[in-house]
């Protein structure tokens, strides 16, 4: 059995699955249940200044669902903790005492003035927590008050607030980033400059879920009026993965530890984050949709996967895929793939044909000889775009196969093992020769 223990910035946990700062970590009751269920750590629901904020008394959450009502995407307009500061501290102290082997990080959000950080950080640290996580990501409500995403969107503020926290904290400081920005490298570098020990990402994405088809108002509303909320859950994973990988492959930030967040629902999602450079993962929506038990499969799935790969620990997986991520301009333009249909597996649905015909390159031919439907790839048209693979309902029925030699029947160009990319391409006005 592979070793699932995790050591993130010196913070130890029995597994790399933490609960993200959110309702599942709102109070001792939930966190105790989470630890009983086997979660490795938690980032406590974000603390703020007293008087504590208030939430709406109507819908905070809504979902995008499949037809069998599986949650695909999740949206919320909840703010940070709505309980008094001291109540949270008291519970955190007790929880850390009761669960010494689990990670307990305090998520915090304070205004942009040093006194507030100076006043709060030491008393929070005194509860025995393992680290801080700075919530510079909440995209609704708090950002209207100059906190959360309003800080995370301005690199100078990130740097400043990180410095303040580092000044008053002795435990590691993680900065949690907002995805509601143009390029995640700027905030990530600001964290580094501010002395952050790590970044965690992503927080939620600004979103409106839909309209109400009866009232033609936005949905959901609080008695008729609504506001944009934060989007998370499975649907946001690809956005999060890109941001994680960008930080992991950026020269300046590549050694900055990352806690991966956004859509983690199964062990496979965790593999994605870890391989693309995260050192652990945090989960909110999956727990809110299925309850804490969901961690069991995450743990056994990851452990079995590591065994299959011959890896002894999670550490061996971290960053494995990062070298495979590059800029478009460095992709090998001499590489030629062609779609190949396994006729044995093909169920003749015709989806590959119609999507290629209508929206792509007219490269999948259809013949119907008295009900005998056959779909074949025309190599003289196939550009290897992968659309057919992406829509085929049968696993591994269409595969992309690289041409190793010969001539590409589409372009008439001889296949070469010599790579060539855009930087040197003749059509590139800025080519380097």
């Amino acid at each position, binding site marked *: 059995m592979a070793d699932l223990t995790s050591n993130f910035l010196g913070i130890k946990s029995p597994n790399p699955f933490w609960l993200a700062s959110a309702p599942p970590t709102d109070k001792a009751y939930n966190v105790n249940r989470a630890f009983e269920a086997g979660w490795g750590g938690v980032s406590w629901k974000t603390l703020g200044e007293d008087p504590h904020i208030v939430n709406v008394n109507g819908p905070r959450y809504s979902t995008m669902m*499949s037809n*069998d009502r599986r949650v695909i995407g999740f949206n919320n307009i909840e703010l940070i903790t709505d309980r008094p500061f001291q109540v949270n501290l008291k519970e955190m102290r007790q929880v850390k005492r009761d669960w010494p082997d689990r990670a307990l990080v305090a998520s915090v959000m304070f205004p942009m003035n040093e006194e507030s950080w100076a006043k709060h950080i030491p008393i929070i640290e005194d509860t025995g927590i393992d680290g801080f996580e700075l919530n510079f990501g909440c995209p609704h409500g708090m950002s209207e008050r100059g906190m959360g995403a309003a800080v995370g969107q301005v690199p100078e503020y990130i740097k400043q607030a990180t410095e303040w926290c580092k000044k008053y904290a002795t435990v590691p400081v993680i900065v949690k980033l907002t995805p509601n920005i143009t390029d995640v490298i700027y905030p990530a570098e600001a964290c580094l400059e501010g002395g952050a020990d790590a970044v965690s990402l992503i927080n939620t994405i600004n979103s409106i879920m839909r309209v109400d088809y009866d009232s033609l108002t936005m949905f959901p509303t609080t008695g008729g009026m609504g506001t944009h909320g934060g989007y998370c859950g499975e649907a946001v994973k690809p956005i999060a993965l890109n941001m994680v990988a960008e930080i992991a492959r950026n020269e300046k930030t590549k050694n900055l530890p990352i806690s991966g967040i956004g859509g983690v629902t199964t062990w496979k999602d965790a593999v994605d984050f870890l391989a693309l450079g995260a050192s652990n993962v945090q989960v909110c929506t999956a727990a809110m949709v299925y309850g804490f038990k969901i961690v069991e499969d995450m743990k056994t799935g990851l452990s079995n996967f590591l065994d299959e790969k011959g890896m002894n620990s999670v550490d061996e997986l971290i960053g494995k895929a990062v070298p495979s991520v590059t800029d478009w301009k460095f992709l090998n333009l001499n590489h030629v793939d062609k779609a190949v249909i396994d006729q044995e597996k093909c169920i003749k649905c015709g*989806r590959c044909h119609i999507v290629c015909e209508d929206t792509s390159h007219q490269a999948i031919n259809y013949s119907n000889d008295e009900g005998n439907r056959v779909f074949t790839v025309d190599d003289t048209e196939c550009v290897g775009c992968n659309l057919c693979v992406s829509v085929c309902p049968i696993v591994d029925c269409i595969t992309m196969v690289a041409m190793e030699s010969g001539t590409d029947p589409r372009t008439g160009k001889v296949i070469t093992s010599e790579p060539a990319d855009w930087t040197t391409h003749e059509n590139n006005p800025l080519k380097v020769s």
Partner: protein
Amino acid sequence: MSNNKLKSEGVNIQSHRLSKKEIEDNFSDLHAPLTQIEALIEADRCYFCYDAPCTKACPSDIDVPGFIQSIRSDNLTGAAEKILSENIFGGMCARDCPTEELCQQACVRNDHEDKPVEIGLLQRYATDSVLDNGVKLFSRKKDTGKSIAVVGAGPAGISCAHRLSVLGHNITVYDAKDKLGGLNEYGIAAYKSTHDFAQQELDYILDIGGINIETGMELGKQITLDDLQKQFDAVFLGCGLGTVNQLNLDNENISGVIDAVEYIANLRQTSNKDELMVGKNIVVVGGGMTAIDIAVQSKLLGAEQVTIAYRRGKNAMAASEYEQALAKKHDVQIQYHLSPKQLISNESNVSAMEFDVMKSHNDGSIKATGESLTLKADVVFKAIGQKLVTEGLADNNLELEKGRIVVDKNRKTSLTKVWAGGDCILDGDNLTVSAVQDGKLAAISINETLTQGA
């Protein structure tokens, strides 16, 4: 003529074999309608195939992936419109089509999981929504001033009339019976068409207007084909098969030997099914859908022993594998290779039936083995096919073959002004859905002919 009702109440022929409640339960929907969540999940299973095989396999060309996609998006009116614009009896067909041999048999999901999309149930889900809510989907085009006679108010005739009405023509439908619907009303098994669905559907269809109904009018009696051709711009014959094939045995008209179709018609028209006379030991002669239906329904009415005796082997049986399984599920015995030899009676009623035991040969023929078998029977149902009544059609130049009306691909007969469709035509496959398609194709052809040069 044979007896068509069970009259004598003897020890072995009784009513009230089961309680009212039991009978009601037995004759509830064979397949319960889908709930919304079931429909959405099932609809999600459809791959939205290109040039979909299921559509190709539907005799009425319903755009199956098209209507299922509309179910997925809660566009039930759009879904129903896709169905009903090709097949106005989409509701009945959703209930009575042998989907296992039609659309669902062609579904690509059979390829890798042996479990087709439940097209029939989804079709019912969509059509129920407009039928139950009376959503009007069709309106008549501008009046063309043309009038067309339709003989027979079964699925073929009404389908033809509806399409013609949409196209702006004026239609008169003649039917010999008092109640409209043909076999939808009198033939389809009660557990397929529950409650008063056939009439509910008819009301919905006829709501289009422009269709004048004349009941109690039989071609060959009150009306003639000659007159209709003179009075109308075109005529559509959808008179089905008016009579049944006989066993041609000596004492075929003894009590207890009856036409299955006739008994089913009576069953469909009886609201208190517990009052029906039901035999204890029943033998059904035949191998088609009617044989299965009468056997299963007899069981549901409380018959003790029901045996279907079929001349040929299992694979030759017209009833599908699925239907045979349905019969077996209801404890009906199916005995293959039994050919009727003679009816045995005590005083007034049949008491048993003797069969020659047959053997199938490679060339498809069957020969008697010389052995025989006798089955106990208080009731013998004849379900060996129906026949066209040709009287009303006889004195015309209407081309018939094998006792059926010959038509071209547009369902046009040898007479200039006459079209035909449904069970009465040659090479029909005796399905509701095909009758509906015939009516539709004939209407399209009639319209083209009547509006040519207009």
